[in-house]
């Protein structure tokens, strides 16, 4: 039997998904919010970027279900306790198992059959010569090296067809459902864009999965592990750091910002003082200092982190918390200013006159009128944190070096780019995956802003 492992970040992400589900369920009752959200999804860009983000979240969710495999029993000896491997795997690893297990000895280019570096080899006569050795796990089914591109071509065609078929099932079902539900007349949702995005993701996914069984389609890195595997595993790190750090900023910014703007007086003074002090410290230095402290803590409490996964998970969570704690000031300032404005409005004054208590006034009259600021900040912060991870890992205060992350891949790229010939695939893989996620998040945040911000006039933006 396998042993399920629940890392703290896994539990957090499950709770987060559950609460988002609950939030959406609640949203059904609120016609105004529903209208705003349908505005987001009525735009083609919003729809497409949402599906891309959803795909990323799905992958990171698959990667958040961890388990440990039992070790094989020794020589049939009956053991009372099953020993488990110290390697923590995730469900995603099952899907990507051909990638994970196919290690080479060092760098190799995408689709290469030979290694990147020459090695000493012995020919049939026993003489030693230097040449590029064949890769162990790339193109080993080929009889001759010259067949490679034909092989890639027909496998690609097959994979693309397969991808089309895979996407056709949900699309067909959804179309069928839409035709029968009879609401088509009033629909403004651009389903065709959704279908196209889904089709594209499915085709690319199938192509990647089926070809990666035979080739290293993004090459291998210095120690010979597959770059594609690394960059896909890094998705979880990127997505989680974005969501968790944003999640940390929210309660601080919302509670402090609204109470400062609402109660004024000394509360306002204290909050203003706190955020001016915090934001006056250069953010990256504050983060670096805190991460150094966490390092010292881990070093002095090594006995609590007996698994590598546990240690990197703890450091990762600490990093999210630190990122969040150092970047709530912007939203807090905006919420304070907006609350100051809103609490002067007539209906809030009227609520006071009727003797409504503070909690109710804030909950019923103030909070709903500042939600647009919060929503816009959530999506903007998300992409900011994903980008920040790369910079922090480069500086050496990011996630654990054992953890797969785009920042760590970029960090390695510095020496790779100065090699001759250039090792470009690792940094390109990180770039493509990161750029797609951040671009989707930025485009989505623009749509959210357009739909929720009362100041943007339609057509002007």
């Amino acid at each position, binding site marked *: 039997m396998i042993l399920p492992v629940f890392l703290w970040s896994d539990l957090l992400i499950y709770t987060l998904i559950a609460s988002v589900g609950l939030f959406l369920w609640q949203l059904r009752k609120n016609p105004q919010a529903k209208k705003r959200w349908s505005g987001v999804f009525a735009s083609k860009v919003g729809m497409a970027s949402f599906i891309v983000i959803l795909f990323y979240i799905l992958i990171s969710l698959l990667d958040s279900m961890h388990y440990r495999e039992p070790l094989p029993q020794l020589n049939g000896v009956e053991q009372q306790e099953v020993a488990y491997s110290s390697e923590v795997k995730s469900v995603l690893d099952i899907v990507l198992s051909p990638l994970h297990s196919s290690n080479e000895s060092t760098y190799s280019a995408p689709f290469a059959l030979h290694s990147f570096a020459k090695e000493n080899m012995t020919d049939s006569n026993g003489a030693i010569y230097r040449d590029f050795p064949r890769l162990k796990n790339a193109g080993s089914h080929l009889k001759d090296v010259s067949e490679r591109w034909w092989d890639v071509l027909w496998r690609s065609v097959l994979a693309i067809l397969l991808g089309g078929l895979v996407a056709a099932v949900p699309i067909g079902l959804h179309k069928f459902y839409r035709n029968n539900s009879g609401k088509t007349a009033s629909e403004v949702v651009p389903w065709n864009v959704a279908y196209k995005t889904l089709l594209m993701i499915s085709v690319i996914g199938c192509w990647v999965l089926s070809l990666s069984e035979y080739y290293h389609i993004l090459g291998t890195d210095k120690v010979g592990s597959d770059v594609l595997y690394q960059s896909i595993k890094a998705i979880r790190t990127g997505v989680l750091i974005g969501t968790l750090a944003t999640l940390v900023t929210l309660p601080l910014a919302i509670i402090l910002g609204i109470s400062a703007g609402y109660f004024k007086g000394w509360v306002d003074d204290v909050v203003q003082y706190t955020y001016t002090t915090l934001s006056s410290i250069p953010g990256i230095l504050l983060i670096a200092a805190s991460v150094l402290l966490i390092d010292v803590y881990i070093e002095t409490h090594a006995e609590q982190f007996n698994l590598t996964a546990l240690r990197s998970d703890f450091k990762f969570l600490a990093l999210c918390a630190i990122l969040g704690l150092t970047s709530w000031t912007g939203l807090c300032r905006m919420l304070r200013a907006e609350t100051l404005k809103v609490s002067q409005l007539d209906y809030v004054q009227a609520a006071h006159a009727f003797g409504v208590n503070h909690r109710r006034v804030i909950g019923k009259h103030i909070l709903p009128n500042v939600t647009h600021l919060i929503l816009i900040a959530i999506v903007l912060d998300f*992409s900011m944190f994903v980008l920040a991870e790369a910079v922090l890992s480069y500086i050496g205060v990011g996630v654990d070096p054992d953890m797969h992350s785009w920042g760590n891949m970029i960090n390695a790229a510095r020496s790779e780019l100065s090699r001759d010939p250039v090792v470009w695939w690792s940094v390109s893989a990180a770039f493509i995956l990161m750029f797609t996620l951040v671009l989707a998040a930025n485009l989505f945040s623009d749509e959210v802003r357009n739909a929720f911000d009362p100041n943007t006039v339609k057509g002007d933006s």
Partner: protein
Amino acid sequence: MLAYIIRRFLYAIPILIGVNILTFALFFMVNTPDQMARVQLGDKHITQQDINNWKAQRGYDKPLFINAEKQGLETLTQTIFFDKSIKLLAFDFGKSDEGRSIGGDIQERMWPSLAVQVPTFIIGILVNICFALIIVMFRASLFEFSALTFCVMLLSISAVFYILGGQFLFAKLWNLVPISGYLGGADALRFLILPIIIGVMAGIGAGTRMYRTIFIEEASRDYIRTARAKGVSELNLLFKHLLPNGMIPVLTGVVVVIPQLFMGSLLMESFFGIPGLGSYTLDAIQAQDFAVVRAMVFLGSVLYIIGLLLTDISYTLVDPRVKLS
């Protein structure tokens, strides 16, 4: 006006004290000097004697707040808090853990940082304003849509990629400039040109979008409509009417970062090997030299507060309607 500035200066003092206490708590109370010494010495087999030596060399062997062994005022001054924290308020940065004078290092390394940051900042603003004006000129057209999409793409790329890409293209592939390094004097230009170009490039996406929003808002005002109704040409309108008024929010927005140009850029300086304050900070972080990190934190917050003050003053200078009180 003068009274206002003085009051703002007084307001800065509690903030600086707050920064001081916060960094002190981070560096000395969460982690004791003993733990710091252990990490710095790094060896598994260190004795208490080694740690004590390390602490004595750097002045970490005193009590945190109150020194009970001394008399009178010295009970307060002969402590780590006074030595390492209060002295910062008088800009006495002390010595780094390696034993060099931090104040001297800062003075020396500030110039390369400025040499990168100031041109990047000025050229960046000019380029962004030009692009924003062009976009505003062709507003509500396909050009605007594609330019804005391009901006979003530009700002979705991490700064690290701009640097890596720029170094690869300009220095490695085309051999136009050296990959990294720095020399003083006239030779500096050769080394500075690539960091400046990359710095400007990395800022275009966000900057252009922000200025466009400002200019678009300005373009919807009444005076613009009146001027257009009176037959002012579109170019005249843009440069004589819109630009001067749009510059108010632009200028007041950027003033806050001007003092921070001193701090240099961590990424740029470390990738290009420029011996400025950014790479100084980065080296200190990587060597876990807490004395330097603390000094840089303090310097950074002082500069930020000066920036806030300059912002307030600049409001009154460019917009006569604003009165400070």
